Each structure stands twice: as structure tokens, then as C-alpha cells.
């Protein structure tokens, strides 16, 4: 008995000691003075860590910019970061750490596993910013505490004219649209853009929503594309898989002359083995790409060079969602009362209209328009920037302006 007692006492003492350490030094939240505490959840490790690399630095850079200009209401913003290790359970644990232990008043959840924490964060009344990942809750009741970086998504996911009209304008006559079967958003996006193309007068020759996340085996889709013979490919999959699909299709003999990818825009393509394959490919971007060279992009790039280590020879891409989430949080803190708290943050930000993230969004966002604003696969106001790979550089299409559209009538 004594051995058993000692066993458990040792184990419990270790547990108690470790966890008691965690309970010390916290409490009181941000308070009326001192720094305002905000949190960031992202996948610093785990299966999607590579995709989210840089988000952390960009988030902090935006907060550094704000702190350099006096913070919010004269108070500095302090950032706490938690790694969800690429799992829904990890996302919940990270949220609990930030809320219960660090006492943050707002959270940015930049992870594909955000579904793990949304109920907890809703229950705690914590406002959440993020890049509209992994589910419809960014515009669906009761998650009114969720603020997408480019507004909220209509949970009905209507078909917009945006991409269909663009593809028609660049000469597409028939389309092959491919999405993941095990990602509802990717699947819906592939179907929606096929419908958008059809509405614009482009023949839909092939629609596949049976690809699997994590697999690069696109042999059946490649053979299907060869057989159906579209001249244009739309992919709602991740950048890596989209490139693998295009590679497989061309190797199989499919005559694809133009392609449009909803993600994948990245400086890593330049100089990579994929660069040749992607010549002339279009990429959708939810924010003003650095190549647009506007005052907003120049200011953002300068701040990222100063605070996040962005090199002068490179440019920002997906990692900018960290910056955008921090911008939403800063705007929420500004909209809250003098002593920001979660409730005043949410009520204040829900009244904000005409938000553009300092000019980075393709259209103004009305946070009061919960459940409206845009649809799956498109940015603010149903718009997107389009960049095209030409030679060793990206260039912004449509004269540097975003392409926009509205719901397909009928």
C-alpha cells in the first residue's frame, strides 16, 4: 500500500507542482491599466506548420506598428501566442491557455483547426479574428463573436459572377474544376466556380470533387481532364496540390492552356521547379498583393521588413493573414470602450462599417453585416485580386485592381 501511496503521491505532486506553477502569476486580465492582452493561436508545429509559417511574425509586426504609434488609448498591446500543433484538440487547449491562463481579451485563430475552439470561445464571450478557415461559423449564428479578416461569409454560399466573368474575359471556352472531396469549403468552391463559369458562358467540361487532402495522386483527375478536354483549369485546392494536379494533367496529355488557382501565390514559387510549369497561371489573392504597389502595400511591406524580417528581395503572401487578423483586433480595440473588454470589443466592432485593413482589402467590409459580405472562395465584397506568374515574377491582372462581382441572378 505504501508503494502505491508513494507512487501516486509522487505523480500527483509532480502534477500539482507543474500545474500550480501555471496558476501563479496570472489573474486580473488586462485590467484598466497596463498592457491590453491579445492572443494568437496558430499551427507552429504539426502537419500544416509549413503553411502557417510566418503568420506569427506578421501578426506581431502589425501589433508592433500599433504600439509604435502609441498603442490603443495610450495602452500597449501585449501578444500571447499558443501553438495548436495542428489538431482540433490542440486548438481548444491553446484557446483555454490564452483565455484562462493569459487572460487575453481577444484571440486571432489562424489555424485550419479553429473548429476545436469556437464553442469554448463563444461560451467565454471572447472575440475571434481569423482568415475564415475550416467552416461556416465565420458568418453563421450563433458565432457572432467571430470576425473574418475580410468580413463574414454568407453561410448559404451563393454563386458569384466574379471568377466566371474573369475566366471568360481571359479567353476560357471550357473549364475543368477540381476540388477536395474531404474539404467542404474546397468542394463548394469548385462547384460554385463551375456554376459561375457556366453562367458566364464557359462550358463546364469536367467537375471533380473527389480529390483527397494530403494526397498528390491526381492520376485519375489527370486522365479525366485529358478525356474531357477543357482549355482552362480551376483548382480550389491548396497550392501544392493544385500544382501537382496541373503537372499530372499535362503529363497525361491534357491540353490545358490556362489555369486559375485559389491559393498558392507565394515567393517560394520563384526559382522553384514549379516555376516553369506555372507560367501564365493565375492566382486569387484576398488582399492587395505587394506587386500592386499601392501606398497600403508599400507601408505594409516596410513594416514587415522592419518588424518581421521580410527581406527586400521577397514579398508577403499567405503569411499576411496574421497581419490582417491583428488589424481586425486593433480595430476592435479601437471600437471598444476606453477599457476594452471582450463584450465591448464585440459590440463595438459589430458597428464598424467601411473597414479596409488600411487599404489592403479589395472592397470595404461592414462588420455589421454578419452572414453577408462575401461567399466561399472570394474576398471582401465578392472580390479578389488576381496575380499571374510571368517569367520570374508575379504581375497583378485587371490593371492592378481587384476583380469583383455579385450573386448570379436566377
Amino acid at each position: 500500500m505504501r508503494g502505491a501511496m508513494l507512487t501516486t503521491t509522487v505523480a500527483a505532486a509532480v502534477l500539482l507542482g507543474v500545474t500550480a506553477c501555471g496558476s501563479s502569476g496570472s489573474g486580473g486580465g488586462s485590467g484598466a491599466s497596463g498592457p491590453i492582452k491579445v492572443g494568437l493561436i496558430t499551427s507552429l508545429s504539426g502537419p500544416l506548420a509549413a503553411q502557417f509559417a510566418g503568420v506569427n511574425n506578421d501578426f506581431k509586426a502589425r501589433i508592433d506598428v500599433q504600439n509604435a504609434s502609441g498603442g490603443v488609448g495610450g495602452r500597449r498591446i501585449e501578444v500571447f501566442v499558443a501553438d495548436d500543433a495542428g489538431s482540433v484538440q490542440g486548438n481548444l487547449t491553446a484557446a483555454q491557455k490564452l483565455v484562462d491562463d493569459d487572460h487575453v481579451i481577444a484571440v486571432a485563430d489562424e489555424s485550419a483547426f479553429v473548429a476545436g475552439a469556437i464553442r469554448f470561445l463563444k461560451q467565454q464571450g471572447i472575440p475571434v479574428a481569423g482568415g475564415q478557415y475550416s467552416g461556416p461559423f465565420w458568418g453563421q449564428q450563433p458565432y457572432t463573436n467571430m470576425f473574418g479578416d475580410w468580413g463574414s461569409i454568407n453561410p448559404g454560399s451563393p454563386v458569384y459572377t466574379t471568377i466566371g466573368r474573369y475566366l471568360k474575359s481571359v479567353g476560357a471556352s471550357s473549364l475543368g474544376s477540381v476540388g477536395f472531396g474531404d474539404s467542404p469549403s474546397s468542394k463548394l468552391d469548385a462547384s460554385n466556380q463551375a456554376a459561375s463559369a457556366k453562367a458566364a458562358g464557359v462550358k463546364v467540361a469536367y467537375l471533380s470533387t473527389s480529390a483527397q487532402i494530403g494526397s498528390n495522386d491526381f492520376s485519375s483527375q489527370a486522365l479525366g481532364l485529358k478525356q474531357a478536354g477543357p482549355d482552362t483549369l480551376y483548382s480550389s485546392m491548396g497550392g501544392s496540390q493544385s500544382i501537382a494536379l496541373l503537372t499530372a494533367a499535362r503529363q497525361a496529355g491534357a491540353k490545358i492552356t490556362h489555369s486559375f488557382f485559389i491559393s498558392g501565390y507565394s515567393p517560394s514559387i520563384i526559382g522553384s521547379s514549379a516555376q516553369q510549369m506555372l507560367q501564365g497561371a493565375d492566382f486569387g489573392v484576398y488582399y492587395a498583393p505587394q506587386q500592386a504597389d499601392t501606398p497600403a502595400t508599400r507601408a505594409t511591406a516596410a513594416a514587415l521588413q522592419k518588424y518581421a524580417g521580410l527581406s527586400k528581395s521577397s514579398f508577403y503572401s499567405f503569411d499576411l493573414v496574421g497581419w490582417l487578423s491583428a488589424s481586425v483586433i486593433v480595430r476592435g480595440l479601437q471600437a471598444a470602450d476606453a477599457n476594452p473588454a471582450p463584450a465591448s470589443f464585440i459590440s463595438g466592432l459589430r458597428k464598424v462599417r467601411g473597414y479596409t485593413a488600411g487599404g489592403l482589402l479589395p472592397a470595404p467590409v461592414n462588420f455589421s453585416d454578419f452572414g453577408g459580405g462575401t461567399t466561399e472562395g472570394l474576398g471582401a465584397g465578392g472580390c479578389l485580386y488576381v496575380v499571374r506568374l510571368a517569367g520570374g515574377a508575379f504581375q497583378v491582372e485587371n490593371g492592378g485592381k481587384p476583380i469583383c462581382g455579385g450573386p448570379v441572378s436566377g
Partner: protein
Amino acid sequence: MTAYVLAGLVSGSIYALTALGLVSTYLSAGVLNFSYGAYAFFAASCYYFLHSQHHWGIAVSAVLVVLVISPLLGLGLWAVLFRGLARSTTLIKVAATIGLSVAFPPVAQILFGKPQVYGTPPGLAPQPVAVYHVLGVAITMDQAIVLACLAAVLVIGGVVLRFTGAGLVVRAVVDSEKMAALTGVSPQRVSAAVWAFSYLLAGLAGVLVAPILGLGSDGFTFLMATAFTAVVIARLRHPGRAVVVALLIGVATSLVQKWAPPSSTLAQDLVPAVPFLFVFVFILLGSRRVTEERGDHEARLGAALAGEDERHHRRAQAAGPARRRYLAAPAAAGRAHAGLIVTIVVLAVLPAVLNSYWVGLVGFGAAMGVALLSFTLVTGEGGLISLAQVSFAGIGSAAVAQFTTVNGLPALLALALAGLVALPFGLVVGLLTVRLGDLHVALITLTFALLMDSLAFDSSYFFQNGLGVNASRPSFAGGGASFAYFALVIFALLALFLVSVRRSTTGLAVVAARWSVPGARTIGLSTTAVRVQAMGVSAVIAAIGGGLLAMYQYASLLNGFSTGQGLVWLAVAVAVGIRSPLGALLAGLAFAVVPGIFTQYLPASWTPVPTLLFGLAAIGMVRQPDGLLADIGGLAHWLGRRAAALLAHGPAGPGGPAARVSPPRPQGVTR
């Protein structure tokens, strides 16, 4: 059609290479290596690191990874691990190799970072990959290399085995190790060489399959499971058949993709089901001729576990009457029960003194403890290595969410019903597997778990566009502390149930079936029925655990119940102690709290370390079958004796009584 068949043959060739490696080590060393897929992932990551990130040439990178690192690692692992496994029980072999499979991915992440791959990871063909047209079908150089590699391995392997002295020696060792040893052959050397060759094949498969699977570790689990299917159907010992079956699976998978409508999810659902369908047909048609040494394996496992109890019993006899009372057989169980009660009492105090973050983790750990308790019954008691417990837990999670949210039932009733929903799944899986033998149970439950991942857990009905389905807690367990208490109470009740089952006639029958199938049959026990029941009850417990996890998270999110996650669950359970409810509870807490500690106190680059530690600790089962719990118990027991001696006699010199208390040996309480 020809193009699809060709694509299928390419996939099938990689499955075949993997299956060949698996069969070779099983035949020569009796170990079916569950870390094979994970090592293939490691090799693919290493090749990408060298070739793509550091711009080494294809030939140099491939030679280094496939011909140098892989066989050397195989030799190293043979020397430190596999050599000692040859005469271990099936449970220890499986647990150790699963521990390795859990450890390889985090090691790869630590060593090679987290590369963002654009497009297809390169294979052995130069970029851009050349495309040839044969009979009107496009074939890439990567595909041609895969087919050529399989042909080369088959031809060279066949020639070496049939026409060379080395091949004769290998065949002699496979036929009869003892007879071969009598002729002066060293079976150990042969075994080492086979392990090196097996890892060479794993490295080759990893490099070849990376362009198809990408660099995600989950895809490699599927590769391994598909190869396992071929190995099972080849009855674990026929390499030629394994190759043929692997090629057939590849072609069948490709044809499913051809015939399923591309705009439906049919292909996505059916492709992962193909290996299970092959296994199912095999079970229906050919399983009677399975040649796994079932009785022998089970008897050895039973004997090993019984040996532990017997040692404790001898200690009890050697101790005084007072100690004898509680150390009487099963002594370890008695100690663990006492420890369990004390642990629950200590944990009951924690919510009062901790902040809500740590209280939440205690609740999570207790819920996990319930799920892991299912291993205590099915594996710890029954000796069945089920890799489907995570799927049963997922079923429980989905059921609780459906019952509480869709049907509006009270949470407690939903929890009980969730167990009942999982019961038939457990019984059917048990019925299909238990009579085939320990290894087949592990292999087929792994395939079943993958099937559940793709057919059920990814379905839109449960996935709900990523939102999952809400799950309600009981009204009295809405807060973090109250939920932790609730989960602890459920755990205590189920642990009590397990303890009473262990002492019942049914429990004795389970142990008897584990000890010796022939022995149990001679006393009139239906070992199949007993073990099927154990599997069914374990499914109920796992489902209740899964239901608690859904309540903890306020939702059923089934991507948390993947097959890969289930391997980590087993690794944690084995590492801490799979034979006692206390082990399950502490394993659950470790699963929750250890990553929490790393998240809280260490940089993000340390995040892969807990998983690595769980894997390494599971490998430790080779040294200590009762897990870390026994080590801690042994240490605590020694400290207690030393403290008692000091209190009784005071500090003494070198010859004093306190000095005569022996320090704990590496074997912990099992000395």
C-alpha cells in the same frame, strides 16, 4: 482503361515493395514492423531535405538515403531493439514498433524542419519529369522508375535467394533457425542483414512514393495499412503472393477512381475501403488456413503476464503477514487499485487549487483516461491488440452529439446509449478477428480504423462543413471543475466495473483465453466467445470515453479520432501501463497535461517532443512490460523502504541497515 491499369500498377508496385520488406522481417525475425510507413515518411523527408532544400544531386541524395542511411538505421535498430524482440510476445513487438512509428514523424520534423512543398515532391526522375508514350498511354519517368525498381527487387531478390550461398543461408534460417545454427550459420547475422535490407526497401518505397503521397505522414500510414492487407492475405509468409495482392489492390483502387463519378465523393469514400474489402473477402473465404502461431503467441503472452503476477506473489509470500494481505495475487492489481483510489482522491482536490486552464486539462485527461481504459480490458487483460479503439471512441463521440443535439436526450442517457451503439461494432470486429490470432487482430483493426476514418468520420453528416455537431454536457457538469469531477466519477465507476469483471468468472475466462487457447478449450471455454465479448465491452468503454471527449469539447469533431491518433493513444497507454486502470488514468492525464506543459513553458519548436516521448516510452515496453507506472512504483517502493529504514535506525554507515536497502533495478517492481 489501359492508362488507369498502368497508374494502378505503379501504386501497387509501391505497396508491393513495402509488403516485401514487411514479409522479409516477419519471416526472418517474427516481427511485423508497424513503423514501416513512418520510416518511409522519414526517408522521404530526408530525401527532400537533401535534394530539394540543400540541392544535392538526385543520385547522391538517393544513394545516401536508400543505400546508406536506411540500412544503417535498420542495423542500428536491430542492434538496440529488434534483436531483443525476436522472442518477445506479440504485444510487445507490436507496441514497440508502434512506438517507433509514433516517434519517427516528430524526429523528422525536428531534423528536417517543416518544408512547404510546392507541387509534387521530387522522385528519382530529373525535373522536369520526362513523359513517354507507350501504346498511346503516357507514362512518366517516375512511374517507369517505380515499375523498374519492383522488377529489379524481384529479379535480384529471387536470384540471390535461389542461386547464391547467401540466399541459401537466409532460406535455411527462415525454415529452421535452430537447424541452421547447427550448421554453423549465425541466425543473428542473417537477421541483422534482413533488417538492413528491409529498411532499405522502406527507404526506397518512401522516396518513390513521395511524388504520389506528398510529404504528409498520414498518407504513409495508409501506405503501410494497404501493404499490411497484402501481407495478411499472403498469410504473412508468402512474398510472391503479397506482391500479387499488392498489385491487385493498386489496380482495383485505380479502377474505382475511373468508374466512380468524379463530381461525387464515391471515389473518395471507396478508395480507402478497397484494402478493407480485400481483407473482408479474405476473412470470408480464406482465413481458415491462417498459419499464425496463435496458440503459441497467446500462450507466450499469457505466460509472460502471468510471470509478472507470480513474481509479485512470491514477494508477498516472502513478506510478512501484513504485507501478504495486500500483495496476494494478483498483487500488482491490488497495488494498482489502491493507487487508483489515491490518485482519484488527489485529482479530486486539484480542481479546487488550480486555475481553469489546468482544471480543463485534468477534465480532458480524465475523459482520455476513460477512452484508454478500453485498452486495459482488451489488451491488458485480453491480450488483443486492437488498433480500432480510437474508432470506437469516435463512434461514441458522434453518438453523444447526435443524441444530445439532434434527439434532445439527456447527456447521461446519451453517454450510456453511445456505449450501446458501439457494442455491435466491437462485437463484429471481434468476431472477424479474434480467431485469427494476435497479429491479425492488430492488422485488421488497423484497416477497420482507416475505413471508419474515410467512410464515417469524414462524411458530411458528421463533419457539418467543419463545424462538427454540438454535444451537451450534463447540466451539473457545465463548468471546468464540475466536468473534471464528472469525468473522474465516470472513470471510477468504469474502473470499478473492470475490477469486478477481472474477479468474475468472465474475467477469469478472459485471462484463461489469454494464457492458453488450447488450455482454455480443454476446460470447456469458448475462447472466441470470451474474446469477442472482451472486444465488445472494450468498444463500449471506448465509446463512453469518446462521448466524454465530445462533451469536453462541446462538440463531436471526428478528425480528432483518426487512425494515426489511435496509434499515439496506444503508445501512451502502453508507455504508462496498459494493465491497470491506474495506468489508463495516468496515461490519459499524461496525454492531456504533458503537451500542455510544453505549450505553456517551452518554445514552439519543442511541440513535437511530447509525441516523440510517448513513442520512445512505448518502445520501453520491451524493457518493462508494465510501463512507467511500474518503474515509478518500484522507485517509490524503494524510497519508502529506505525512508522507513532511516526512521527506524537513523543514518548509518556503509554497513548500516539503511545502506542495505537495495536501490531499484532497471526492471522496477518486476524484479
